[in-house]
């Protein structure tokens, strides 16, 4: 196919580089420099999608990021992206795009029946549907989902790589139009570190789509090129093209997405696809330009109806004729520029239909002088054409602008260029919590007071003339640089001279009258992407919605991927008019990031797979791996879970491991336990205030178990702390709580008790910890140490000794989490593996058995020892756990006062108990609910839940721990566990210690 609508010359395209691409299976050609939209238009393709609700044919409407219709699906799985704006997609050789929201094909679309049955889709349709009986929703859901189909997300994993980067600058300038370029120049010339971000791949902004403007007597684009060259030559300036500042957060923190390789056919390996810039700017200059506003008239949505400014861009920037015969429809002067440009490109201007009563303004006068046919005080009352506009009718209006005379004259045309005024792009200003104010003369919202260190300049500030943009940009750049500490040096450069006219005068008519009443035949769309009409807005108002935020949600106005860039202000205007309010009284809906859609991948960046979260391994990790251990994640740590032998499953391996520990000897890697070194003359005082029990009388060389509460009285952590010296302790914490416990200590030391002389240091990773447990533990240790006296009298339970183990300096703690005689050997981390291996070798004769976390859990449950986070959940206090014995009555400690609050004394608090199932072989699932009275079906009154449950070979049956309301007083009572699979398990409340209740083995 040839590019029939390509102009023979001109445009910012490279005609030497012809590119092939496909759209919906057909092949086309375009040029380097084209967008997908301009290349389609060059080939005469306007109809490229169907609308969301009514499946009406839709065409390319805009030329930039405001495009509501031309959403396409790009590429193939796994590299496929839905909802891409054809207007922003750079054409690359071999590009493949598909239309969206049509089924089975664009030409034969079943959903188009919705258009005929449009009474089924009034505003609030979705709300009303959801309020119907659920059964009805089930029926409609399939239909709606299938018909809606806003593109497809990739099914496979994203093969591309994304990066994130941090940056800082003195002045960030967003937008490289005339205002942005001149701001960046002024700031950079003052010496500030400047980042200039532009979403387009060319700098120049509005100048790229307009010709005829001059700066200092030369074509305006030449000035832009010179400015760009100067900026690029400055070492402190970074120009980011294809980069959209999409989010403006607190304290001048902005996020930008840079599309690095999307436009490249061959993508270099070292480059990410997109890059997320997390940028902190001392000052921000917003020069984001403006968005043209459509007019809301009857059937204003057909392919071939486009924004007037977009038509100019297609003609001037892309050298494309968007049609053969055009009508221009406007309420302001700027569309006459479009008419002149179209006319100059050889497009026949059939008429300029002007809502204004008089044709005045600089461009209007030029058009008049050029002899273009003008119908002033006229409205377009109807359009015709299926997949492309064919004909329209224009009729004269009455003085009020609310009615037309007659049905109007038919005019044949295939292009309708529309302009309803211009809206400053104040999204970022608003995201930064800046004020928004209504400007009556300009008929648009403009930025009010900024709430951060930001300035708006140029069209986004409501200053539309070129000379004003240049002057305001320069002033903003200078002011921003000065605020960041950079005063302009030398003689001030004169602001360049340029043409300076905006789009005024204009006449604001929010709703263009037709020859039939609103809603009777034809649709007045104000929101193209979500298919919302003026009649929908009025229905919402009739149904009682008043707040614009409610009207927005009820009608879905502005809730598409374009966030209503072309629709919101018209919606507000129509609502204002219909309710007799002034526009500022209606207010404006909230602007939220992202400004344009952002790829999910860029949020993940490189934080995927192994880099998602750090993995912490103990010094003996490799040994566990070689021994065939399976691992479990405990926080970031990987802990050996169990060591299967000869094809054992979890149950078999754990049975063997727990049996062997109690029979002879087990060894476990406990290096992950949190270790905090506490020193200072007030170390004892700190522990006394932090733990529930007393610490001041603990002898040097002794250990004590401690329970730590939050100030709310709930158990926060537990562990053994050893007194290594007069002013020196080593605290252990649970694996997962090492960091929170240290933070807890620091908070109290620094904020409540700064007078305490005490210092805490995390030493978790400095030490490897090997736990040996079982009847042969002492015998084995004796073989490996010569300088630690091991007799029970010399080294009793809960004592700590220093010496050498296997020739390595060690601290040995006689503590036990298994109920067996046990030693925890702490060594410098780098010796952990060597000593582990020495112990394994020496232990062979005892059949030493490495055991993992699962066996440890069983062993401790046999003894009724709790695990914080398993038997506790932030709502369990020490009394609930039956641990009153460890709670001091005398001294104060963190959380103590809370234990006597009335709520803590309630008899129906959940309390820790043991549970034995009636059938000793049945193991209750952890989390199972326990009830007193079994009902035929839920709901049932729940009494508690199972917190730990195992099969214990040492006890010879299943055992469980549970938290049961009033459980301490219910020993011996029968309960039932109704399970999800329908079984009901009978069980009995018992004491939570199942094995060696006297603790003889511990002290042996």
């Amino acid at each position, binding site marked *: 196919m040839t590019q029939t609508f390509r102009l023979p010359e001109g445009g910012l395209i490279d005609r030497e580089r012809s590119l092939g691409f496909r759209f919906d299976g057909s092949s086309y050609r375009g040029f380097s420099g084209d967008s997908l939209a301009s290349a389609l238009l060059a080939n005469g393709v306007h109809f490229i999608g169907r609308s969301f609700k009514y499946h009406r044919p839709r065409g390319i409407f805009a030329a930039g990021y405001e495009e509501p219709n031309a959403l396409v699906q790009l590429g193939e799985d796994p590299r496929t992206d839905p909802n891409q704006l054809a207007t922003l997609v750079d054409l690359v050789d071999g590009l493949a795009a598909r239309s969206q929201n049509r089924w089975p094909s664009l030409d034969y679309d079943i959903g188009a029946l919705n258009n005929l049955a449009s009474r089924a889709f009034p505003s609030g349709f979705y709300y009303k549907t959801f309020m119907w009986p659920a059964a009805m929703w089930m029926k409609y859901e399939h239909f709606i989902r299938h018909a809606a189909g806003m593109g497809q997300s990739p099914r496979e994993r994203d093969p591309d790589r994304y990066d994130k980067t941090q940056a800082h600058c003195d002045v960030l300038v967003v937008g490289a139009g005339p205002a942005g370029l001149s701001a960046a120049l002024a700031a950079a010339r003052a010496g500030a570190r400047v980042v200039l971000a532009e979403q387009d791949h060319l700098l120049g902004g509005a100048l790229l789509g307009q010709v005829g403007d001059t700066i200092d007597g030369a074509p305006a684009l030449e000035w832009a090129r010179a400015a760009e060259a100067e900026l690029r030559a400055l070492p402190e300036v970074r120009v980011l093209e294809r980069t959209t500042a999409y989010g403006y957060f*607190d304290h001048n923190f902005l996020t930008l997405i840079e599309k690095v390789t999307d436009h490249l056919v061959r993508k270099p390996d070292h480059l990410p696809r997109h890059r997320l810039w997390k940028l*902190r700017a001392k000052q921000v200059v917003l020069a984001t330009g403006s968005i043209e506003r459509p007019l809301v008239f009857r059937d204003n949505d057909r392919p071939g109806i486009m924004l007037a400014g977009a038509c100019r861009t297609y003609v001037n920037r892309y050298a494309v004729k968007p049609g053969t015969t055009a009508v221009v429809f406007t309420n302001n002067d700027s569309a006459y520029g479009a008419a002149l440009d179209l006319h100059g490109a050889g497009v026949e201007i059939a008429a300029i239909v002007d809502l204004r009563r008089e044709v005045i303004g600089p461009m209007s006068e030029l058009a008049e002088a050029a002899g273009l046919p003008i119908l002033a005080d006229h409205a377009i009352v109807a359009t015709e054409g299926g997949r492309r506009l064919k004909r329209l009718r224009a009729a004269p209006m009455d003085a009020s602008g609310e009615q037309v005379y007659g049905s109007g004259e038919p005019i044949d045309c295939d292009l309708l260029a529309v302009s309803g005024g211009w809206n400053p792009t104040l999204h970022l200003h608003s995201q930064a919590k800046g004020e928004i104010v209504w400007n009556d003369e300009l008929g648009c919202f403009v930025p009010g007071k900024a709430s951060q260190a930001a300035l708006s300049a140029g069209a986004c500030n409501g200053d539309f003339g070129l000379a004003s943009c240049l002057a305001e940009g320069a002033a903003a750049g200078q002011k921003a640089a000065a605020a960041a500490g950079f005063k302009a040096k030398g003689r001030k450069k004169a602001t360049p001279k340029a043409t300076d006219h905006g789009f005024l005068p204009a006449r604001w008519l929010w709703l263009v009258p037709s020859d039939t009443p609103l809603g009777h035949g034809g649709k007045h769309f104000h929101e193209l992407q979500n298919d919302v009409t003026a009649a929908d807005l009025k229905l919402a108002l009739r149904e009682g919605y008043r707040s614009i935020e409610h009207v927005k949600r009820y009608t879905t106005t502005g809730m598409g991927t374009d966030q209503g860039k072309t629709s919101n202000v018209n919606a507000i205007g129509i609502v204002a008019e219909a309710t007799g309010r002034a526009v500022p009284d209606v207010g404006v809906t909230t602007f939220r990031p992202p400004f344009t859609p952002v790829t999910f991948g860029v949020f993940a960046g490189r934080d995927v797979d192994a880099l998602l979260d750090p993995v912490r391994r103990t010094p003996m990790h490799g040994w566990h791996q070689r021994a065939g251990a399976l691992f479990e994640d405990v926080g970031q740590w990987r802990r050996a879970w169990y060591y299967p032998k000869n094809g054992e499953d979890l149950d078999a391996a754990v049975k063997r491991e727990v049996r062997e520990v109690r029979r002879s000897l087990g060894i476990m890697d406990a290096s992950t336990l949190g270790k905090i070194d506490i020193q200072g003359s007030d170390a004892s005082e700190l522990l006394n205030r932090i733990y529930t029990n007393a610490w001041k009388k603990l002898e040097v060389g002794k250990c004590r178990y401690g329970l730590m509460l939050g100030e709310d009285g709930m158990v926060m952590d537990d562990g053994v702390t050893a007194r290594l010296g007069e002013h020196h302790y080593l605290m252990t914490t649970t694996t997962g709580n090492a960091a929170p416990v240290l933070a807890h200590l620091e908070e109290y030391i*620094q904020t409540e008790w700064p007078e305490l002389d005490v210092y805490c240091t995390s030493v978790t990773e400095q030490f490897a910890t090997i736990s040996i447990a079982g009847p042969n533990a002492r015998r084995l240790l004796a073989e490996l140490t010569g300088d630690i006296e091991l007799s029970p009298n010399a080294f009793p339970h809960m004592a700590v000794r220093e010496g050498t183990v296997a020739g390595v300096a060690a601290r040995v703690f006689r503590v036990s989490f298994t109920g067996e005689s046990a030693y925890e050997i702490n060594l410098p981390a780098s010796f952990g593996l060597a000593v582990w291996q020495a112990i394994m070798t020496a232990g062979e004769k005892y059949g030493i058995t490495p055991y993992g976390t699962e066996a440890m859990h069983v062993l401790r449950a046999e003894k009724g020892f709790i695990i914080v986070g398993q038997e506790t959940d932030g709502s369990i206090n020490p009394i609930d756990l039956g641990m009153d014995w460890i709670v001091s009555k005398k001294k104060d400690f963190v959380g103590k006062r809370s234990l006597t609050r009335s709520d803590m004394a309630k008899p129906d608090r959940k309390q820790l108990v043991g549970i034995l199932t009636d059938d000793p072989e049945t193991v209750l699932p952890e989390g199972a609910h326990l009830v007193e009275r079994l009902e035929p079906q839920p709901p049932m009154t729940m009494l508690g839940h199972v917190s730990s449950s195992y099969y214990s070979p040492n006890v010879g049956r299943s055992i469980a721990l549970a938290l049961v309301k009033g459980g301490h007083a219910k020993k011996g009572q029968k309960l039932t566990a109704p399970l999800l699979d329908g079984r009901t398990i009978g069980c009995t409340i018992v004491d939570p210690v199942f094995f060696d209740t006297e603790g003889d083995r511990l002290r042996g």
Partner: protein
Amino acid sequence: MLLIPCPYCGERDETEFSYGGEAHIERPKDPEKLSDAEWADYVFMRPNSKGILLERWVHSHGCRRWFNLARDTVTYKIHAVYRMGEKPPRVPKTDYV
């Protein structure tokens, strides 16, 4: 994301810090003397005020030290930073409703 001026390290991103709630709420010297209501007031109740709030932060992923900020909870503007134990500085009045 706030830019927080740690008095020991300088300005750092909010992600390096943890929040510690309202400042200058001293732990009662003798909790046992308090009624349940008074104790609950200390542990649980905060006014969640609109305007400039004196609040505690800790530079968790930096120097690990606690300090105070005077921060406007509406604009998020940080009016002052001061160390633990220091008197709160004078800050402008806010007249939010």
